[in-house]
């Protein structure tokens, strides 16, 4: 067991440092515009990593379950997270081959696949850019 702070705390400490001490120093300085922009990107990237640490185990399991339903098989899900990620990557390579071979061309299969892929993209965005998802939801609500 490691002492605290854990990886999440460490990541948080770094982006807080960038937000509080570095970004304000660069803001508004024309000569530092690029560095300021890169610093904002760096802060954002650390927040992505922070969310990934929290959400990854849940997302990997959910994707495994969806693939089982999509492919109508009941493959046993590995307990170990790294093993799960590795096997998921392999299943996705196979899924790519199946898509290329036309196994999801029928409207029913295509719809089921599309639903699965949309859910996977949604999970990716919960980590990478939750605000993007909020924007889409707001837009959809306004259309109705």
């Amino acid at each position: 067991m490691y002492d605290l702070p854990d990886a999440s705390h460490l990541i948080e400490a770094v982006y807080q440092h960038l937000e509080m001490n570095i970004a304000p120093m660069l803001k508004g300085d024309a000569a530092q515009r690029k560095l300021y922009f890169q610093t904002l990107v760096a802060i954002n990237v650390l927040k992505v990593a922070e969310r990934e640490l929290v959400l990854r185990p849940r997302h990997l399991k959910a994707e495994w379950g969806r693939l089982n339903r999509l492919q109508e098989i009941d493959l046993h899900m590995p307990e170990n997270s790294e093993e799960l990620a590795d096997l998921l990557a392999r299943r996705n390579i196979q899924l790519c081959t199946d898509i290329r071979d036309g196994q999801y061309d029928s409207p029913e299969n295509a719809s089921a696949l599309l639903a699965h892929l949309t859910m996977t993209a949604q999970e990716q965005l919960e980590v990478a850019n939750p605000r993007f998802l909020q924007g889409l939801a707001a837009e959809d609500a306004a259309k109705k």
Partner: protein
Amino acid sequence: MPEPKQLSEQIAAFIESQIGQAVTILELEQLAGGGSLDTWRIRATSPDEEWHLVMRRDLETVMVAESLSREQEFKLLQAAYESGVRVPRPRWQSNDPAVLDKPFFMMDYVEGFSIGRIIVKAPEAEPARQVLPELMAEQIALIHAIDWQKHGLDFLPAPQHGNTPADEALLSVRKELYRLDIHNPAIEFGLRWLDKNQPPYQLSLVHGDFRLGNFQIGLPYGLNAVIDWEFAHIGDPLEDLAWPCVRDWRFGMGHLRLAGIADREPFLQTYERHTGQAIDRTAVDYWEIMGNLRWAVTCLAQADRHLSGRDPSVEFASLGRRSAEMQMEMLRLIQATGVG
């Protein structure tokens, strides 16, 4: 990379060689943006004239291997200029490494601002937003009318071996995925869907990056120049109508489909009026899906520049995880169009 002082002397010597008069450089400023090119703004004076120029010069790494050379971009700009498209007037070009190390060309500087997120939101850009949809339609119609053979633009990438423009686009995405060794089911599904749902097509000169960010916007005219021609090719003109609609080019104003400034329909109708041709909206949707697919893969390719250690950069690294935005948009558009 030479120091600006040395660069300034080299630039002066080059312009002198072109105009046959002594030249003094008054101002030399490196411009931001354009990941694949080194861009400079130059103010110079010669006995007879004042010069305000922009130089585009190659960098070491090229963002997309298929983009045009500076020499080709210069010829294309000449064709557009002669055809009445609003572009910076092209001036001189050289590939001689003795001049400025890398191939480059120079063109007139055009006043205006180009930053997308400012154009879609800033109150002072409101008059520009009013006129832009019409002007974009007018300019892209002019571009599509350029006779590329007559202008000697046969070097432009064009569909090969009886491929359709969509085949060609899908093939380049496939090559890129193979190079990057990426197996992404959403992208694979997009490729499959786009392959099976290809609309009828025509061929024309295609700008290839016709979107906010590549327009010099100013008032009162609104659209002072269409810039960044390095991705021009022969393809389906609808590609250029769809690209400014791709969500990422709405700069946060997602509900306004055309470039984050307006609905798409007035833009398409103006284009139809200029070309005298009816446009199939579903085919424009198709190219918007294609645009998202390609942008999704380009993001992954940019991330690879970091991952491979070639260009370590937090910015490139971050783009890898932005790909999911384009994937999501592509899936939503396919859903709206119909999976079958």
